[in-house]
């Protein structure tokens, strides 16, 4: 596995497919009800909805944190709901996730946090150094490579999280509120990064509250309300 241009995912298989997906936590109410969705490999979408609508919950189904209560989730044509546990790591390596609460590893430096997915994938250290350095420069953190996340500002943490999510050139990027803690200038820069990755073939879903951001780009919007998903062009 190298960092050079990935083999394009099977054009036939959509990156994301939801078949009658529903989700509830334990015996609680259904947060998501009967979602149906097909996203081609090169699509980019905003995911909007009021606080507590279930955006993070929907993304968590896609980054394989949990199984849906009902229905099936398919990624790149594989039904991950039914798939053998052993096959999931390979699928996870095709994903890039930006968590709403970052989930950086506090004991690792900025550089090591970003390098982690490459190291897990067994990439050579020289290649890692090159890629990570370049990416951190892009998000404006070249001076903070040896810093631990604990002393970073909110926006800096968010950028580290984004860098970690995209360093592996994933085929599906799931971003949860990726610009909530950065100013508009950096926000634009990060959006450009996403658009660039989308051009290279990645499917991207960006959950956000930022109406400003949504209105500035004319990506189709997935709107969550009352547990139902609505697709808007």
């Amino acid at each position, binding site marked *: 596995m190298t960092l050079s241009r990935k083999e394009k995912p099977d054009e036939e298989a959509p990156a994301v497919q939801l078949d009658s997906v529903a989700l509830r936590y334990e015996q609680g109410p259904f947060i998501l009800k009967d979602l149906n969705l097909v996203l081609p490999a090169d699509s980019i979408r905003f995911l909007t909805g009021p606080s507590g609508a279930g955006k993070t919950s929907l993304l968590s189904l896609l*980054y*394989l*944190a*949990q*199984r849906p209560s009902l229905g099936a989730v398919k990624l790149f044509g594989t039904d991950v709901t039914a798939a053998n*546990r052993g096959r*999931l*790591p*390979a*699928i*996870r*390596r095709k*994903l890039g*996730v930006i968590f709403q609460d970052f*989930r950086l*590893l*506090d*004991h*690792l430096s900025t550089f*090591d946090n970003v390098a*982690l*997915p490459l*190291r*897990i*994938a*067994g990439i050579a250290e020289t290649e890692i150094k090159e890629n990570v350095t370049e990416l951190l420069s892009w998000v404006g953190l070249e001076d903070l490579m040896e810093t631990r996340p604990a002393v970073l500002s909110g926006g800096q943490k968010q950028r580290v999280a984004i860098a970690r999510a995209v360093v592996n050139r994933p085929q599906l990027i799931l971003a949860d509120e990726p610009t909530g803690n950065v100013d508009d200038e950096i926000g634009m820069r990060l959006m450009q990064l996403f658009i660039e990755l989308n051009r290279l073939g990645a499917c991207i879903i960006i959950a956000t509250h930022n109406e400003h951001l949504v209105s500035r780009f004319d990506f189709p919007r997935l709107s969550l309300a009352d547990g139902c998903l609505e697709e808007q062009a």
Partner: protein
Amino acid sequence: MIDLRSELPLGGDSATAYIPWLVAIMVFLGTLAVSGVNTFDSILQGWSRSMTGTLTVQIPSAASETSLSETTAQIERVVRALNATQIVDSVTVLSKSELNNLLAPWLGDDIGDSDIPLPTLIDVTLTDEAPQTVEKLRTAIAEVVPNAVVDDHRRWFGHLIELTEGFRLLALCVACVVAIALALTVVYATRASLAEFKDIIAVFHFIGAQDMYVATQFAKRTFLAAFKGSIGGFASGTVTLLLIRWLAQNVESGFLPDVSLGLSFWLTLPFIGILAALLAMVTAYITVLGTLRTMM
């Protein structure tokens, strides 16, 4: 390859930092307990060798001069009867001076000079240690000299042996308790440190790490932590044992058997620590895999 040292924040202020300490303490106490068991074992064996393998036959002396030849004849008959049983290794008739030494504490040092007619004592070493043997000999001797007394020493050492066996059991109990405590502690510490690292493990998981990869990392780190503790416990345990041995050297003499612990014991000692470290490692491995299995 991934740099193991930087992947997981094991150590530092985490629960895993306990493991070396706990393992060290447990290995230390375990070493003492096991050596206690061994010491008592060795004491008991020493006594059992010096006792169950021997017995003493007493032939009361006749009161008058004339019966001296009678006594001599009795001694001869007993010795012959003993040798005939085929289970006797050696037979020694105690000399008068040996007898004096034996009785001195009770009858005074100068008893030998007095006219007290002492019984004759015959020390017998057996080839067979079964209790029935003594009975067999008793019967054989009773046939030839009815008033001879066979003493198998049990009477004297009996209580001491029982007490020592009690101590041996106590040491064994402590060793078991320490082993259980060690196992519990390691399981517990591993689980706690897993709980602490739950978020980190989740990140590894989401990034696409294999279960085995995470479990192996944990197992390695836990083994190293436990091993460090083992070395500490082994070292302090051994030093303490050597100190006690040094103190005990003044005691080891006279009627106590040689209680110094054999080479094989000293060679076994490090394995207590290694076992503890392995236990910690396997526990960590299994616990991590179990935790990961609960994730999708």
